[in-house]
């Protein structure tokens, strides 16, 4: 079974690593910017260069992270023009940002390579998943385009790409499908350095270098040309393009001669006398190959044309390879060009066949796989059936049900492609390590045996309690199945609760093995299974095994990480490798993987393996039918009653089967839907003890999920309260006679524990008993459900009755941001929730792409909610890079609409009365009461306008459509540090400089959280992050200083855990400031390497050490004003005391203590100097410029004036 003999080196890796290995070996400079799903390619290169890995010439490539893809493309352009070998990696929007430079690079015939993990472009929605809409948007740039369709090809074509760029001078865009190839783990044969050297001709490298820009042989590039010559010059490069196909084919041939892997610009597979042929490129090729082989085995005559070189389009090759017998060709595009005659590949093929004279062939088009939609042999079989019909439709879709335009073809659900592979499916949680263990398992099998191996991983969109499904195949033949497993030989369920939320055993084939992690012994588990599971185990005659993995993991000291417990069970039961060999190899891999983390980690994991096998037990399925209720086979708890139909389907994971008509046409979705998703993921729940509570509101303000609520209400509301519902008299004099309840939402709480951690009230008799305490969810969830339902029905308190500028007061306001899927203990979401409490009913949010756009706007639900009147935050995400500008646009529109409403109102004064018009015009709307009054006036206005007929009717309708704009709106531009400090900084700067009344909230996690911890310019000196593996060398940018330099921008730096009250006041002041405002909010993140239940303590320590000083810069027109107010005290602890409690800093201390000490000392110096500067700044008088002639103008830029006065 184990590998014997020698051959080419093999590796079991994903497509990103396959491409990056070659790119790193063939580059001198790597510039990049992280974007899913291409980020890992850059990260690999950074890791390798950091470890000193050299390229084939012996140099360590310089890997540089840029501020955006536009920046990366600019740097790529420069590096290539200077004559170095430069590359970058990107996808989707990132590729779009590179387009301007790509035109330039190609226009100047400069060899360079971009590797693209092809991904959908954001249109009606963002999608991080794979299709060809990004690369198709680049097809006019003049770059050669190579399409790889598998992990092996991503490796091989990376070499072809680099070599072709050098040989032809035409830059190359090498792409493969995002996720399906970029993240699919496969066993491949590696190219060695000799292979690389053989194809990369040194004379081409030297020629490229000699063309490089140099004052020793100066030339001018990038000239501006006039109508006299521009056109001719554009045509001058034609011979280079004409030479590309032959050059690429020559390289493919050279590669084939060395490796045995023969490639063509276009390849044909199938029956020599095929009548029906499909054309496609990318990962769909794998599924198509399986389909045509199986169909031809049964005598059908079908074929497949695989496009490898997409630009320059190999028309002649395509025509030559298309069998002369073919009468029907269907071209599959994985992109959509609305309004075009057809999608791009289709048009190319039509033109190619037309030009070649093959006009007898009927060419049709099929669109498939957008946003990683599944593409399977059954769908292809359906397409071939459509092609055989008497009059096949010209334009169809594959993989969906289109009941609007009726484009879809029906899959053939009876079609099966046989496989010799063992197929295994694992259901797990993101936090339990299932995916990581499976990746390790695939590598183990792939690299220790002659078996081929494939792994593909599916995740849901939440960051807490996310479900993962691993699809693994192992077999004696190369695996081409580029689609999910539908008939598994082995099914593992790593979380018992998942049995109730998904039909896990649907995927099991008859007689499969089923492994369940359950908190029950083998002889008692049966009675605890949902009815559907019992039914399926019996009906499919599954071999059923159980293990209490959580118990084993706890026993050996691994906490909630059950991966090392479940993995040996898979090996023991699946028989992919003989059991003893498998376990020995598994232990070896543990020592290899965890060796650098210390013996304790290795020992615990090894112990887990041994204990797991002892604890694994076969379940004897009871002979008699029992407890099965056929009427309720699956007890889905995921969807709350009353959810909108679409939300219900999406939450229940039925999105795949939704027809086109079920989806909105323009991407607009209802808000307030997260409340319908009852995930019940908290294993512990906070339970309130009103006898101790002091009404402070801290638990509610820090709750990242709005799952702890506080309400004050009239005692009469307690009529009909459930028996267990708790309340107390409101403390203090501000709300006399009212009752107060702090209530957990038991199905929405993640059990993160932040509320308990922050609670300051404790029992006198036992200090560890607080006013809110974590308790086992199993003991409390059922009891708290009716309490929560009752709590929700209690009317919200009149907003005007409470002070908004206190912690308690703010927490008595209804949150309109609730139950997000953010990480448990997220440091960002409490700020958004607070914002929604203060301004939710009149707030417009422009949200930059990032964590906040994912937990804020990723289907199936959104946490942005509505109040009882149907008002709530209106939320939109434009892009990552343009959020400030987008938000400004929304503001400009509102101002325009408001001004127009006022103008019309004034015009209509004679018809609707002076009194109401004046009242509407003069309302200052400074507080909730005044806003409520204005809304009433607007309602009256609309009533009056509706009654107008005759000549005023048209104007009345126009004013009525704008009347709501007479109520003040507040505009919040929200995003993370990646946006504000890096990619969106230019736009942010411009918007702050515009003087317009917008509010900016920067959720500063000091790292690119959403894409996995890459350094941003907000990353502090000395912290470890990706692209800063040896600790960030430079200091964090002082974003507030830039904003303050304008003088008229309200700027605040806040940290909820440092001072909740200061945060509340800063947000209120920012909203009230009539000009631009910037609030920079310290946001703890899982990427800080902290226990998230202690988030607020870390924030407090950040403030206490002076690392994160709290301040508010409140511009004032008053003479003698001191706009800069320091809200935190002078540092009382050393920075290192704060820093070394976080793994992002302590990791460096353990890998390079000298450097860690050096950087921490530098960071301490940063802090000391900044504090000194801020103390001086607090004494600086500065008045906003005004024109009454009395003010004494101070220097415009007092940032450099220190204590000027």
């Amino acid at each position, binding site marked *: 079974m184990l590998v014997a003999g020698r051959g080419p080196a093999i590796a079991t890796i994903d497509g990103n690593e396959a491409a990056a290995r070659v790119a790193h070996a063939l580059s001198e400079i790597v510039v990049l910017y992280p974007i899913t799903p291409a980020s890992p390619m850059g990260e690999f290169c950074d890791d390798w260069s950091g470890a000193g890995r050299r390229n084939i010439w012996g140099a360590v490539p310089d890997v540089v992270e840029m501020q955006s893809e536009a920046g990366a493309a600019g740097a790529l352009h420069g590096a290539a023009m200077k004559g170095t070998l430069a590359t970058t990696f990107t996808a989707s929007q990132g590729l779009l940002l590179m387009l301007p430079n790509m035109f330039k690079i190609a226009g100047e015939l400069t060899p360079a390579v971009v590797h693209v993990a092809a991904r959908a472009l954001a249109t009606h929605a963002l999608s991080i998943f794979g299709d060809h809409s990004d690369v198709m948007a680049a097809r006019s740039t003049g770059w050669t385009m190579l399409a790889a369709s598998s992990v092996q090809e991503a490796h091989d074509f990376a070499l072809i790409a680099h070599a072709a760029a050098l040989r032809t001078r035409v830059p190359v865009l090498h792409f493969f499908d995002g996720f399906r190839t970029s993240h699919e783990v496969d066993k491949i044969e590696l190219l060695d350095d000799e292979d690389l050297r053989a194809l990369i001709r040194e004379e081409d490298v030297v020629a490229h270098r000699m063309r490089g820009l140099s004052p020793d042989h100066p030339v001018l590039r990038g000239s501006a040309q006039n109508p006299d010559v521009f056109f001719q010059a554009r045509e001058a490069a034609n011979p280079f393009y004409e030479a590309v196909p032959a050059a690429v084919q020559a390289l493919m041939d050279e590669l084939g001669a060395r490796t045995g892997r023969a490639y063509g610009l276009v390849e044909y597979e199938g029956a020599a006398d095929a009548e029906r042929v499909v054309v496609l490129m990318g990962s769909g090729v794998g599924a198509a190959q399986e389909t045509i082989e199986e169909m031809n085995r049964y005598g059908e005559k079908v074929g497949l044309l695989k496009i490898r070189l997409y630009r320059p389009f190999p028309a002649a090759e395509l025509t030559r390879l298309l069998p002369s017998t073919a009468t029907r060709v269907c071209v599959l595009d994985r992109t959509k060009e609305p309004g075009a005659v057809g999608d791009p590949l289709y048009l190319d093929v039509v033109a190619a066949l037309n030009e070649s004279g093959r006009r007898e062939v009927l060419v049709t088009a099929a669109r498939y796989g957008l946003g990683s939609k599944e593409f399977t042999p059954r769908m292809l079989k359906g397409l071939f059936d459509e092609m055989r019909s008497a009059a096949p439709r010209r334009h169809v879709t594959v993989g969906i049900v289109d009941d609007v335009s009726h484009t879809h073809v029906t899959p053939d659900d009876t079609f099966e492609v046989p496989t010799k592979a063992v197929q295994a499916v694992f259901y797990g949680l993101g*936090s339990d*390590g299932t995916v990581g263990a499976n990746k390790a398992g695939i590598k183990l099998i792939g690299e220790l045996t002659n078996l081929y191996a494939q792994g593909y991983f599916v995740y849901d969109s939440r960051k807490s309690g996310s479900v993962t499904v691993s699809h693994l195949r192992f077999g004696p033949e190369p695996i081409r199945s580029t689609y999910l497993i539908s008939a598994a030989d082995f099914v593992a369920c790593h979380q018992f609760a998942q049995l109730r939320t998904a039909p896990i055993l649907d995927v099991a084939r008859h007689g499969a093995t089923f492994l369940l992690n359950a908190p029950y012994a083998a002889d008692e588990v049966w009675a605890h299974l949902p009815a559907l599971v019992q039914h399926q185990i019996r009906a499919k005659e599954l071999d059923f095994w159980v293990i209490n993995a959580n118990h084993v993991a706890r026993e050996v000291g691994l906490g909630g990480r059950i991966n090392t417990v479940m993995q040996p069970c898979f090996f023991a039961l699946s028989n992919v490798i003989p059991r003893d060999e498998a376990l020995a190899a598994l232990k070896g891999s543990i020592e290899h993987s965890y060796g650098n983390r210390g013996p304790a980690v290795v020992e615990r994991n090894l112990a887990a393996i041994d204990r797991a096998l002892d604890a694994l037990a076969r379940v004897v399925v009871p002979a008699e039918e029992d407890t099965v209720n056929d009427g309720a086979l699956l007890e889905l708890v995921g969807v709350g009653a009353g959810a909108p139909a679409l939300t219900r389907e999406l939450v229940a994971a039925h999105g795949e089967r939704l027809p086109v008509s079920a989806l909105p046409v323009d991407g607009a979705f209802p808000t307030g839907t997260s409340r319908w998703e009852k995930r019940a993921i908290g294993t512990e729940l906070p339970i309130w003890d009103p006898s101790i509570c002091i009404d402070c509101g801290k638990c509610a303000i820090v709750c990242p999920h709005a799952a702890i609520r506080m309400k004050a209400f009239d005692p009469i509301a307690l009529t009909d309260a459930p028996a267990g519902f708790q309340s107390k008299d409101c403390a203090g004099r501000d709300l006399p006679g009212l009752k107060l309840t702090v209530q957990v939402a038991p199905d929405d709480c993640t059990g993160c524990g932040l509320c308990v951690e922050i609670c300051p009230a404790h029992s006198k008799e036992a200090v560890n008993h607080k006013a809110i305490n974590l308790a086992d969810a199993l003991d409390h969830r059922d009891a708290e459900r009716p309490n929560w339902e009752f709590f929700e029905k209690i009317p919200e308190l009149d907003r005007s009755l409470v002070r908004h500028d206190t912690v308690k007061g703010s927490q008595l306001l209804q949150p309109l941001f609730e139950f997000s899927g953010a990480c448990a203990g997220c440091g960002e979401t409490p700020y958004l929730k607070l914002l929604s409490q203060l301004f939710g009913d009149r707030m417009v949010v422009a949200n930059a792409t990032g964590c906040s756009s994912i937990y804020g706007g990723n289907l199936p639900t959104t946490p942005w909610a509505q109040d009882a009147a149907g008002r709530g935050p209106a939320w939109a995400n434009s892009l990552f890079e343009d959020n400030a500008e987008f938000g400004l646009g929304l503001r400009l529109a509102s101002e325009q609409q408001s001004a127009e409403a006022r103008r019309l109102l004034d015009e209509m004064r004679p018809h609707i009365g002076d009194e109401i018009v004046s009242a509407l015009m003069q309302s200052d709307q400074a507080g909730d009461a005044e806003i409520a009054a204005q809304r009433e006036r607007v309602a009256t206005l609309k009533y009056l306008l509706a009654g107008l007929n005759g000549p005023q009717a048209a104007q009345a309708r126009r004013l009525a459509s704008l009347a709501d704009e007479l109520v003040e709106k507040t505009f919040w531009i929200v995003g993370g540090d990646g946006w504000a400090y890096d990619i969106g900084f230019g736009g942010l700067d411009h918007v702050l400089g515009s003087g317009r009344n917008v509010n900016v909230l920067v959720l500063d996690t000091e790292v690119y959280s959403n*894409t*996995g911890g890459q350094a941003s310019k907000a990353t502090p000196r000395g912290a470890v992050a990706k692209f800063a593996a040896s600790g960030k060398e430079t200091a964090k940018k002082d974003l507030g200083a830039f904003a303050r330099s304008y003088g008229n921008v309200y700027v605040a730096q806040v940290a909820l855990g440092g001072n909740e009250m200061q945060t509340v006041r800063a947000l209120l002041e920012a909203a009230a400031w009539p000009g631009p405002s910037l609030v920079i909010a310290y946001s703890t993140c*899982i990427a800080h390497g902290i226990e998230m239940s202690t988030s607020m303590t870390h924030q407090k320590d950040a403030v206490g050490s002076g690392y994160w000083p709290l301040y508010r810069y409140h511009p004032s027109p008053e003479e003698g004003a001191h706009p800069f107010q320091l809200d935190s005290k002078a540092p009382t602890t050393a920075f290192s005391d704060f820093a070394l409690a976080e793994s992002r800093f302590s990791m460096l201390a*353990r890998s390079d203590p000298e450097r860690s000490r050096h950087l921490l000392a530098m960071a301490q110096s940063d802090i000391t100097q900044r504090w000194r500067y801020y103390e001086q700044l607090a004494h600086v008088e500065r008045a906003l410029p005004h024109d009454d002639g009395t003010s004494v103008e101070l220097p415009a830029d007092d940032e450099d004036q220190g204590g000027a006065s």
Partner: protein
Amino acid sequence: MIDLATTYLGLSLRSPIVASASPMTNSLERLQALEHAGAGAVVLPSLFEEEVNREALRLSADLDAGSDSFPEVGSFFPPMEFEHLGPLSHLKLITAAKAHMTIPVIASVNGTTAGWWLRNAELLAIGGADAIELNLYSVQANPERTATAVEEKYLRLVDDLRFRVGVPIAVKLSPYLSSTANFARRLVDSGVDGLVLFNRFYQPDINLDTLDVENRVDLSTPEDIKLPLRWIGLLRPLLPRTSLALTSGVHSGLDVAKAVLVGADVAMMASALLRRGAGQVALAEAELVAWMTTRGYHSVAQMRGSMSSHTARDARPYERAQYIRTLASYHVGNHS
């Protein structure tokens, strides 16, 4: 010329002043400063099993946190090599110290499981430590475990370690033993080369602002020397060939003189160094030399044990608590 030379654990030291395990000995730079100031030897900070494991597990958990849990994130941190984690950090410090210093370097180990203790003591010995100090630091709060069982466990450990390492072994004792002299002799019988008296525990304190129980490091005061003085004085005649180190309350050269007089081969300093820096070693040495000169001593060897329980003019204070007499002699201040 005063001869300060002494022998500790079979190692020749130029001075009886030794830097005890503390943050003052956690870097090469500090160790070199101590050597420069005249320290006879240095004891590196203790390698604590619980601490090492906790840190390793924490780093491991943080590295894994969030990994592969949603499609955009494989992991949150770059792959890293922790060459300075736990034992490796100590090993590197020993290697560096041995390469750049001439005075003996003693490694200190504190474990909870026998296997860990043995493995790491052996590792540090192989790594170049001149001696191993076993730091018997534990809080025995389990009412089911007898004093005998605890002592037997330690004796077995010493037995096993003696078999596995060639370098001298010292044991740092807790002052809270039912029969200190008995346990000390049994340790020596098991092959221990020296005893260090006594360990100072972190003691919990109550924060009245937060009502948290906090583990505080309280530096010693000169008063703290009295307990080890008694026991060195008692043990010296009982264990004539065993190295004895006095630690706790050594703040000055006069304290060193006391230690040597009762029978200590070395006096170990930590709190004084943490308060005043490595230079305190030189100051203490100068004080010691001055005292010896004034008293006419010409060598430390001459002094050592000259005031033990066998050689002191009146040894009764060693044996009896003298509670009543001492208390009676205490003059109550006028606080009324």
